[in-house]
């Protein structure tokens, strides 16, 4: 049991740096499109790892189903809203940043 707890803790701790890199990306990257890259991808992986850690600690199947649902819904919502934001930015003629 101690191994499972340790592995769960490891997964949750592993997820945190991805959330941080999403935020670092938001601050460092030059335009709306590149920031979308950082926020969607890094946070998705961070959430995935934290959910995995929490599943290992879950007491019953209902909790596991709930956690998986949350992950799936966030994944779907984040990729759909990523597309919508990029699409709206293009329609408003925001030119993507290019390396000079």
């Amino acid at each position: 049991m101690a191994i499972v707890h340790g592995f769960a803790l490891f997964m949750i701790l592993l997820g945190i740096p991805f959330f941080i890199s999403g935020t670092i990306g938001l601050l460092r990257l030059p335009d709306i499109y590149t920031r979308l890259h950082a926020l969607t991808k890094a946070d998705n992986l961070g959430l995935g790892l934290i959910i995995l850690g929490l599943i290992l600690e879950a007491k019953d199947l209902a909790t596991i189903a709930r956690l998986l649902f949350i992950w799936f819904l966030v994944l779907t919502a984040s990729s759909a809203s990523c597309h919508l934001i990029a699409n709206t930015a293009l329609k408003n003629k925001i030119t993507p940043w290019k390396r000079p």
Partner: protein
Amino acid sequence: MDGSMARPALHKYFGQRVLPRLILFELLWLVLAGTSPQSIMISLPVVIVATIASLILAPTLRYPISPLPLIRSLPLFLFLSLVSGFDVMKRVFHPDLPIRPGLISYHTRLPHGPPLALLLNCISLLPGTISADYRDSCILVHTIDTEQPAEKVIKKLEDRIGEIFRVDPASGGAL
């Protein structure tokens, strides 16, 4: 007379389109929010609004999904999601910020509707790409590194999605 003619059609519409969605959304709510009476009371209007929205946005689900290719593709989706998270981390923590962003266009032969929607959504989960626009079967993709072979990964994904929806992207799909 008119009323009695329309009734069977209405029953069919309710039974085949409305009822399954109502049940699905209510189940989703119960799994997420639990089964306390207050929660169920709040769920009723939300589920009805969600059902109406889904009937407007996706009136029919014409594409049957084959479960086996879907299950076989899950490891690929998860792996790509993992790679793209690491890719972002590597770039944003690097002192030089190694990005060469740009727009590329990708020609897809997947038919409109669920297969295309799934591809557009999945592109945003791939390493270094987000789908920005779609016009005349061309997807405009924003890539964080124009020197990365994005087309190859998108092609692979397109083939998998074709298998899931039983359409052949190479032959022009179900059209």
